[in-house]
């Protein structure tokens, strides 16, 4: 019989990379930024973090560097979308392409070596897993209980109005993109430093795309992201676990399910907003649109 606790422990670590990346993208999207460059930022973090951990022998320095590297590469996206007002979708796709190439190019010297061991955190669970779980209430608190969180949401909901109120839309968005990059970087580094212990090209293998889906599933809330990361991570863990227990599972159908669930959730919250005019839960009003101040 499958022990639920063991599945849950697997799930905690399996969902960590996508949880970090999705929390970062959540902040960006709440500020009105749809950044499809998550995969590119994750792989950058995976390499930079691994390189730093390997060079210093300290995995935690690795995660720090990964966050910085993710934020640094997100600046390219910021310049494109906030300064040159380029389309967000196209810029994000370009960032993914660029990041994957850049990481592969600079990663050559780090092939075949192993990351330093990572000390276990409380209850034998990795420190970074704990950090990810901690970030959920922190981000919830930031979005809902702080003035800066309010400004961020205002910018994402209606950038014209936020601008008229005197908030700096561009600065807010720049910060949100950088935070998104840092979180994606940590998520990527979790794969290289804590999961695989090695660097290999393309090792994030599409995790950044899953993070995008999770944010939609979450209805743009921090706890929703946690639920989404557990759902998406959980389906993978569960189907593998069921396979190991020799239960016949339709793998492809099962792996499709979280995406269908995401669409259903999106439809439900959108319908609620459309038909009963209840605010909240739906996509930020200015998501994906660039802002240009006329005055």
């Amino acid at each position: 019989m499958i022990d639920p606790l063991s599945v849950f422990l697997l799930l905690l670590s399996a969902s960590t990379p996508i949880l970090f990346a999705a929390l970062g993208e959540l902040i960006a999207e709440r500020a009105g930024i749809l950044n499809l460059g998550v995969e590119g930022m994750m792989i950058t973090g995976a390499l930079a973090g691994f390189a730093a951990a390997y060079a210093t022998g300290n995995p935690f320095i690795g995660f720090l560097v990964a966050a910085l590297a993710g934020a640094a590469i997100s600046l390219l996206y910021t310049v494109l979308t906030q300064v040159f007002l380029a389309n967000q979708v196209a810029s994000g796709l370009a960032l993914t392409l660029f990041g994957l190439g850049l990481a592969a190019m600079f990663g050559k010297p780090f092939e075949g070596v192993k990351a330093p061991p990572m000390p276990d955190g409380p209850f034998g669970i990795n420190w970074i897993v704990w950090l990810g779980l901690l970030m959920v209430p922190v981000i919830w608190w930031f979005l809902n209980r702080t003035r800066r969180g309010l400004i961020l949401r205002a910018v994402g909901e209606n950038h014209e109005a936020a601008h008229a109120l005197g908030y700096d839309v561009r600065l807010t968005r720049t910060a949100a993109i950088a935070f998104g990059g840092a979180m994606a970087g940590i998520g990527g580094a979790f794969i290289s430093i804590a999961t695989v212990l090695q660097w290999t090209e393309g090792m994030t293998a599409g995790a950044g795309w899953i993070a995008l889906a999770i944010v939609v599933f979450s209805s743009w809330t921090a706890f929703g992201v946690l639920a989404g990361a557990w759902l998406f991570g959980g389906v993978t863990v569960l189907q593998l676990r069921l396979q190991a227990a020799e239960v016949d599972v339709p793998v492809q159908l099962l792996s499709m399910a979280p995406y269908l669930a995401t669409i259903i959730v999106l439809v439900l919250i959108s319908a609620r907003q459309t038909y009963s005019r209840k605010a909240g839960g739906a996509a930020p009003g200015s998501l994906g649109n660039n802002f240009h101040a006329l005055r």
Partner: protein
Amino acid sequence: MIRLVPRSTASTFWQVATPVMAVLATMIAGGVLFAIMGHDPVTAIRTIFWDPLFGPAAAYSRPQLLVKAAPLILIASGLAIGFRAGIWNIGAEGQYIIGGLTGGAVALAAYPSEGAWIFPAMVIAGAAGGWAWGMIPALLRNWFGASEILVSLMLVYVAQRVAAWMAFGPMKNPEGFGFPGSRNLQQYPAASNPELIAGTGAHWGVVAAAVAVLVTWVLVSRHIRGFHIRAAGSAPRAARFAGVNPATLVAFCLGLSGALAGMAGLFEVAGPAGQITDKLGTGYGFTAIIVAFLGRLHPVGILLAGLLLALTYIGGELAQLTMQLPAATVQVFQGMLLFFLLGFDVLTRFRIQRKGQS
């Protein structure tokens, strides 16, 4: 300080000048990159931009440009229509995959019978599959107000898994020794999409791309629906008063771009790719979004942008081949090109002014 002032209409001069400037900037920045990586920058740039067109093997690579560019242009033409109206279909990759599957399914069902109806039926099925997949986000937006950006993106993931399911299950080649992937349609004459004139690379997908460019050009510049599309994109409220039904427009744009993406998928499955595999989606649907923007959402621009991107793909391969430039370096170079093209585009839409000037 400088500031950007929006232009009332996009500048024609800059529309032509910015892509040229972007390519030049990429050549310089890329040259620096290649030099840092220890490769001769002049040779590298020449290999990527010149050799596919005029190099020693150009007789082969020129037609290949069409093969590579055709799906991008076909998909981007449809996407641009929607983008002009502010309807964001970013799930063309999914529509491409589903079109390949539905079109390919017709061929696999008809196998081994021969008949002139098979290929046209496949094209129709492919377009219908893409159309249907595009109509899902359209209807969900019209009925429930769900964002078509997000729904269409989610449906890409679903489509990828449908393709894997088909390649491992129902559509697996029964004579394939258990390996995943369908029968090869190139070896099934009634269903294949071969080169129409030897040595030109042109298959039906290339023809369709050319037609799509012409039709969308007429549509946006001459047809009343084109007017509606432009109106909806620039002034949605006014458009509504002018009698544009937003729901119809959403369905039209997503349906059209889905159908074109689906056709592109079918042409690829029946032609250059040859079979349905779990790797059916190779990213054309996403790259086409970039092509649409690089082409300024204009049919002619899209044509040129599609060819330019195809050039860098084929040139990048040549650079790997002749200079042993790693694939990653080529990828970084392509990323740079996109950054510069997207960034310079600001000049077509804005004027740069010193602060204080009026």
